[in-house]
């Protein structure tokens, strides 16, 4: 990202927070960290009351595109009602809502059809909302310099796993734009980010439904082996699905005689630690990987 870095915009920032399904239900420490981080950075968030699943970018869209678009548009209309842009903490939610938003903005026939459905429940989506991933908010709206200003340096070797959906861009866009932001955000904490040849590869989460053994042995294991060779202390990602795969996947790999023990954190958890949120306030015990080992290494 280097020269194109966007500088801090520390004026009033307010967004609608879209929590999605996985974070509140499986890793609430990410929700907790995000709320505490926003507070420290002076970002105001309003919850999207009555939101539904984004819905799921793989299963729901394949199952029924009209249903998927109707649910996404309803979620977008909730943010429009608040007059706010949406923040997502999940790559999957980002992709689903972003794509639905673009489709609603650009395809007038589709917008009419979906609004016809929404009107049955008294809603309408005009297309005024922007959907932003948390790394875009942190990098573009808050800025690396603001984060560095308040972050205390952490010392550890980090592997950055962007996750597949973070690479999605509009046609012709730079697919490394958001992954690059994520890497710089991790570096802003003082972490030594190592480059792994398999950074672009999927963690295997979506494959688990289809072929669990292949997802674990031909995706997750290959990445973890690479991290082991690079003597990584912890994995940082921007996606709760990837966290689940890294954490529960390491446990599942043991049945194949493959033992790994890498801690894995979401970027908001890492930044919350870096800006001084006490460890015990983050409830990191929701994780299923050895986070305390990483905390010790970081010197928090």
């Amino acid at each position, binding site marked *: 990202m280097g020269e194109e870095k966007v500088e801090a915009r520390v004026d009033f920032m307010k967004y609608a927070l879209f*929590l999605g*399904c*996985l974070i*509140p*239900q*499986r890793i*609430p*420490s990410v*929700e*907790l960290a995000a709320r505490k981080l926003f507070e420290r950075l002076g970002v105001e968030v309003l*919850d*999207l*009351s*009555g*939101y*539904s*699943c984004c*819905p*799921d970018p793989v*299963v*729901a869209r*394949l*199952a*029924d595109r*009209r*249903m998927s678009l*109707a*649910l996404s548009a*309803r979620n977008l209309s909730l943010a429009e009602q608040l007059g706010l842009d949406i923040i997502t903490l999940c790559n999957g939610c980002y992709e689903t809502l972003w794509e639905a938003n673009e489709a609603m903005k650009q395809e007038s026939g589709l917008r009419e059809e979906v609004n016809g*459905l*929404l009107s*049955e*429940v*008294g*809603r309408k989506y005009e297309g005024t909302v922007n959907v932003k991933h948390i790394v875009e908010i942190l990098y573009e709206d808050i800025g690396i310099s603001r984060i560095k200003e308040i972050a205390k340096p952490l010392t550890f070797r980090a592997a950055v796993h962007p996750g597949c959906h973070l690479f999605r861009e509009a046609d012709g866009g730079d697919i490394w734009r958001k992954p690059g932001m994520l890497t710089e955000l991790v570096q802003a904490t003082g972490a030594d980010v190592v480059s792994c040849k398999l950074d672009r590869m999927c963690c295997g989460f979506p494959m688990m*439904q*289809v072929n669990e053994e292949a997802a674990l042995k031909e995706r997750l294991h290959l990445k973890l082996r690479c991290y082991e060779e690079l003597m990584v202390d912890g994995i940082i990602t921007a996606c709760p699905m990837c966290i689940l795969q890294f954490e529960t996947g390491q446990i599942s790999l043991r049945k194949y005689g493959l033992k790994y023990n890498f801690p894995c954190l979401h970027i908001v958890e890492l930044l919350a630690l870096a800006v001084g949120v006490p460890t015990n306030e983050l*409830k990191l015990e*929701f994780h299923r990987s050895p986070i305390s080992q990483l905390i010790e290494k970081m010197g928090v």
Partner: protein
Amino acid sequence: MTDLAVDEILEGLTREVKARVIYSRERRAVVEIEPRSIRKAVEILSNKGRFMMLAAVDEGLDIELLYNFDVDGTVVVLRAVIAKETSEIDSISDLMPAAEWAERETAELFGVRFKAHPRPAPLLLPEGWSGSPPLRGPFEGELPAKICPVAESLISVGTTAPLSPHMQRKRDEAGLPASPPASYASEEALRELQELMKRVAFDKKAGYDWERKKLRRG
């Protein structure tokens, strides 16, 4: 029979058994009825038409029954869709004797039970047949089985998985609201969401049973 006469039959079916005319054109009309109305519908037709044939189609979760009648040169089809879980409908053999063999054939090949059939004996299959009805497929809808749990959860609570009481407790202990402000935390939001599911007919596609709040299972 004139078009006017066919119109009268369709009007009678609509009025008496709340039939829905799917289409009506020259010499052919298809009418959808509730399975429980089959005898009443046949009674309306009985003094004007003759039974021609009964066709069955396995639709995965349901069986479609198409009763074809000749009404003086116009084919009138009564369409009744029965749930595979029960697979039963009243017999019309006493009203239309020509339907007796057609019902027996459908019973054997698709596993449909025609209630109060006068002679429910096998017709086509070899004596001692112990296999399942040969034209009856597995109980499965349009969605692949692996997607079904997600579809069920999306329709019933609006998320990919319900929030467990254990996690609600853990969230509360962590200082978070026990439940996030999601659709499942608001009756109004959930109602709105479920209405959308019905509007896009995803409930039908997934085979959702609104009474049991679950996907139908065979």
